[in-house]
């Protein structure tokens, strides 16, 4: 099993550019999440989804958009990249029953210059 796969691993963007961070999971998990991790700040929830077609905002959603057309995929879109969005982005997924752990991908390191 691949688990949670994120692409790309690294990316440099110019201010104002847009891009989509890809996330796919092969565990048939209903719940998926996007976090950003900044040094010394822990992980902050950007958006989450409870299933295909259902998404909701987390703590820091401004500047981002998501969609969930399938169970497997949960892409995160940056429309107008800003330096404040320089961060490491993690996607996670979780099964729907009980206290199941969140499974994380290995992250996308994004720099906005």
């Amino acid at each position: 099993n691949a688990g949670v796969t994120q692409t790309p691993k690294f990316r440099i963007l110019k201010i104002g550019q847009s891009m989509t961070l890809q996330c796919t999971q092969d565990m048939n998990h209903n719940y998926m999440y996007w976090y950003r991790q900044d040094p010394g700040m822990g992980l902050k929830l950007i958006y989450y989804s409870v299933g295909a077609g259902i998404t909701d905002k987390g703590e820091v959603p401004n500047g981002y958009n998501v969609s969930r057309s399938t169970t497997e995929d949960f892409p995160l879109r940056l429309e107008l990249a800003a330096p404040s969005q320089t961060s490491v982005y993690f996607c996670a997924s979780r099964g729907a029953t009980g206290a199941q752990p969140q499974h994380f991908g290995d992250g996308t390191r994004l720099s906005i210059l």
Partner: protein
Amino acid sequence: QQQVKQSPQSLIVQKGGISIINCAYENTAFDYFPWYQQFPGKGPALLIAIRPDVSEKKEGRFTISFNKSAKQFSLHIMDSQPGDSATYFCAASTRIRGSTLGRLYFGRGTQLTVWP
């Protein structure tokens, strides 16, 4: 506002020693308290977790101590090894819309270094 406060920010321990990381929270609605371990270039991975109806949970060299009245919980790593060198995050979870969704609020992390 940081929902979960974690200390220390960094910790250096000698091989064989005990590593202790502390976390505190305010929201009494939190009902699940996991610890995640993260190695450089990797995503966090669940290490151990506890529910508030127990005061301690042990898995191998890793123990969570939980004090519900003080709203504090801690991770103890016994016989610390160089391979334990990583960043550790405590987290707390609450339900969303009455479901078991488990939205996680993370502490800021502790960078543990174990010297051989």
